[in-house]
């Protein structure tokens, strides 16, 4: 990522409105208002088949997996780094989880996903700091490697249906309440880490100015590594939720796992955009929810899902434009 990626801008707080605008309450109300807005629009256009409470829970259930990944990415993105290998890690960790679940049941599934995810995070982080290559580049290389490793892992799965969770059991995380419990725990952990440990402060500090942070005694290398580990821990949780959600995981080649990077990243964009209001976690969760809601709204309107990417891109761009504009004369890369 180019330097100065998330250089926060200087806010001039003069009026009381400005003060209000900088508060957490403002941020959360803006998010809720956005949700209501999209809900209302689709509900109006398609009153019978969109947005009942039952449907809303379905949307939420779909969105939480991406929100978990978005939380993880937040650590890296505020530091100005990026990771292209999370899609490949989702595939690999999920497959490891499935493989272990054959022998060790739920323990194998959960620990397989989480441990494999976290270990890969440590590996990525170490490689990044040892090779001293920009994260965006090193993770493209790792994405290629991890994607192919997943193909070797799936071959170890001797079950009749490699990569698929057995339909009899192992599906607790595919539905309420366990998917909510897993995702909720991840969100809480994220909130705790940002607010009640020094990790949040240090990640922000590194993102603002790495050299100054270093002089202030922030062990930059260490916290970048911690960032990668945390990212991929959350990716491990996401892998667990994703493989449970779809009940199976497919090993891919040819960089197709890249597609999986971007849905969580959208949530992260929301998080970063609302960071100045002090509510990144809610923004990530609500942001992903909005994106899934739009997707469902379009299907409800019987618009071909092919247009979905178009609408998602437009909505994201609008939101980023509204919330994350740089000051005039500022240098943005």
């Amino acid at each position, binding site marked *: 990522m180019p330097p100065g990626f998330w250089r926060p801008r200087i806010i001039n707080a003069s009026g009381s409105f400005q003060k209000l605008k900088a508060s957490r309450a403002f941020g959360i109300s803006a998010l809720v208002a956005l949700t209501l807005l999209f809900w209302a629009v689709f509900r109006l256009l398609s009153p019978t088949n969109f947005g009942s409470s039952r449907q809303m829970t379905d949307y939420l259930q779909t969105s939480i997996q991406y929100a978990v990944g978005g939380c993880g990415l937040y650590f890296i993105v505020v530091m100005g780094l990026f990771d292209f290998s999370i899609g490949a890690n989702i595939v690999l960790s999920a497959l490891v989880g499935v493989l272990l679940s054959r022998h060790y049941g739920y323990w194998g599934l959960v620990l397989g996903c989480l441990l494999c995810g976290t270990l890969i995070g440590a590996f990525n982080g170490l490689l990044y700091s040892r090779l001293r290559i920009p994260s965006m580049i090193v993770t493209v290389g790792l994405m290629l490697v991890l994607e192919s490793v997943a193909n070797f892992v799936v071959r170890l799965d001797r079950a009749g249906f490699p990569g698929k969770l057995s339909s009899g059991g192992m599906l607790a995380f595919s539905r309420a309440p366990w998917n909510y419990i897993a995702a909720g725990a991840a969100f809480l952990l994220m909130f705790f880490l940002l607010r009640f440990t020094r990790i949040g402060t240090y990640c922000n500090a590194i993102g603002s100015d790495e050299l100054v942070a270093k002089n202030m005694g922030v062990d930059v290398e260490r916290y970048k590594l911690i960032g990668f580990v945390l990212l991929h821990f959350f990716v491990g949780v996401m892998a667990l939720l994703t493989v449970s959600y779809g009940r199976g*995981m497919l090993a891919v080649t040819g960089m197709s796992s890249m597609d999986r990077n971007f849905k969580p990243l959208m949530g992260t964009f929301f998080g970063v955009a609302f960071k100045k209001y002090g509510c990144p976690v809610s923004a990530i969760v609500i942001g992903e929810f909005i994106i899934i809601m739009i997707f469902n709204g379009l299907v409800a309107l019987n618009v071909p899902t092919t247009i979905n990417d178009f609408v998602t891109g437009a909505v994201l761009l609008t939101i980023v434009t509204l919330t994350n504009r740089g000051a005039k004369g500022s240098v943005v890369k």
Partner: protein
Amino acid sequence: NKKPLIGVSIWSSTDTLGSQCKRILDAAAKALDVNLMYIDQGHVSEKVTASAETLAAAGCDGMIICNSASAEMNAVINTCTKNKMYLAQFFRIIDKTANPNEYKLACQSPYFIGAVHESEVDNGMNLVRILCEKGCRKIALEGWNSGDATFLLRWQGYKKGIEAWNKANPKSKAVLLDPQYGGTTTDTGRATAEAIINANKDIDALIVAGGGGDTLIGALAAIDSMGLKGKIKVMSTDFLADLDQQLASGAMAGESGGHYADPLFAFMLVYNAVKGNYKKPAGSFYEIIFPYLYVASPADYEAYAKYFVDDLPYNASELVAMSKLSEPDLAKKSAALSIQDVMQRRK
């Protein structure tokens, strides 16, 4: 006398269907002492045409390909002609009316040997007919990627099937919804199926058009988690490894599939061309129609699993024998493939 080298340009050699294709091709290559070289092109047009070039540069004697759009075949055929590399399509054929130029080029090129394909339109019609006969009247459709040649043909078949049904039963008409696209992974498959069902509460059937099987797994997960198992009848064109359980539990209403042996016949065409056994018919090319197998009960599937999943439909000696067949016999062999056929041979 070096081993022939035959290239395989496939969307993916690792997903549910692709890995099965690879399995049978590997068995044939071993039996016939041929080297294979795989390229996964992901059905991205640029990569499809590039795969032919890569295979040519590697010095392949022939290649088989599952392309994405028919127009790609123009460049592919030219590459093969220029580099004297035999070529056959699998799961695909160039449509004479829709792509006349490519069709002409295929007929003219001495290296385009032929194509093996399923009658996708018929398959589509069949699936819809079966659903309608089971009493379904509002059928939703989940595809994988828009614009894919096979999907378009199947879609055509579904539409024709509905038309035919409505003509025959004007009092009890059925409708087919426009397709939504669920990608090729389980999670996107589920998310899309949920969206379809949420937006259309009154559907009684869902066709998951294909996409290698993983989209279907996701769709089944959606129906299961929404408590609609059995209420929405699911049909698809990709056999799942646990189809028996799905059928038994009512999650699936029936399925066509088993077509993973299709590339084998394309391989045989190219193999024989390389060996000099087949001469390309002047001004045309060989066309082999591969039959779909239809499975509608757990018992059907049990037999299928025995001969197609746990084992392969052809063993080494049968493969060697097959390689010695003339083209018309090969076509017959292909048309004859069914669960019964294998059962008989194995007795």
